[in-house]
């Protein structure tokens, strides 16, 4: 069962991330620590073991579903924030538009001759 094997690796790396955070006190999530460690491990091995890709591929496809339960929570606090919504929505959408423009423009400029 390669996928199960791979899942065990992913879970182990997440748990290692927990331990790293526990001892270092870094304010980041264990998932990110685990992801970076996974990237480093794979570059040391020099290939992706089939067990890892068997577990990682479907999980990546499910990312959107996994954040859904949290996202739905916003529909249940609509009343609490009455009168604040306009400012919040304008700040988020206009702010995002501005930062998207900045990112695209800046990276295009910086990449210059790298761009194809």
């Amino acid at each position, binding site marked *: 069962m390669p996928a199960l094997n791979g899942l065990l690796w992913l879970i182990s790396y997440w748990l290692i991330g927990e331990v790293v955070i526990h001892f270092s006190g870094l304010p980041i999530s264990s998932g990110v620590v*685990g992801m970076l460690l996974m990237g480093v491990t794979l570059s040391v091995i020099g290939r992706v073991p089939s067990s890892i890709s068997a577990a990682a591929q479907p999980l990546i496809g*499910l990312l959107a579903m996994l954040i*859904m339960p949290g996202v739905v929570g916003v529909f249940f606090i609509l009343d609490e*924030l009455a009168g604040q919504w306009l400012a919040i929505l304008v700040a988020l959408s206009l*702010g995002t538009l501005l930062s998207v423009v900045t990112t695209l423009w800046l990276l295009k400029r910086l*990449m210059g001759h790298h761009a194809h």
Partner: protein
Amino acid sequence: MPTDVLATLTATPLFAVGLTLAAFLVGSALFNRLKQPSWLPAILIAALLLAGALALIGMPYATYQQGAAWLTVLLGPATVALGMPLYQQLPRIRALWRPLAVCLPISAALATFYALGIAWLMGSPGQILASIAAKSVTAPIAIGITEQLGGNVALLMGALLVTGVVTIPCVSLCARVLHIDDERIIGFALGLNGHAIGTVRAFELSHTAGAFASLGMSLTGIFTALLLPLAWELIGVGSG
């Protein structure tokens, strides 16, 4: 639905898990049926369906969330799984490390700064500012940051949804206006600004875009997690 039946069903977390799977599958099917509109991502359709279903059967959100935790626990290993596309694209990322390293801190800081500046100008109180500050950061990290700033996590999740959903059409529109068709730039912008929702979109475009999105998403998460709480203290927004 009679309350006793509902009580029986909600006693098991499988009800919330099943409801989530159903909403996701129906949402994805509708998304494909609508020919994958960039302004209406599958996750928004699914979230609306799910919220509608919960309201219809009168299931309290807290009960649902408790059951769905059996599913969301997979968010941890799923985030670790992103190390794989990251590794696969490493040669292409390494070739661009300099522009990426310059772009990231500026863009990630501005992603927070623009939104906070606008909200502040429009008179939002400090509590709201603390809740939306991590709007471009991937959920598992953003929750930690928001708790540290004293914000409301439910509002943060809403801010993540709005930001992620808005990022997708913004990127396709701005890329067209700026004549950018490089999937690496588009992917990076999707992940940096639109966290997991933007990254999911980037993987729909191509594997390269997805890998650059994962990179943008994780670097933004780390950068914001390390510096935002510090900046918050220095500027003293929280006390305002």
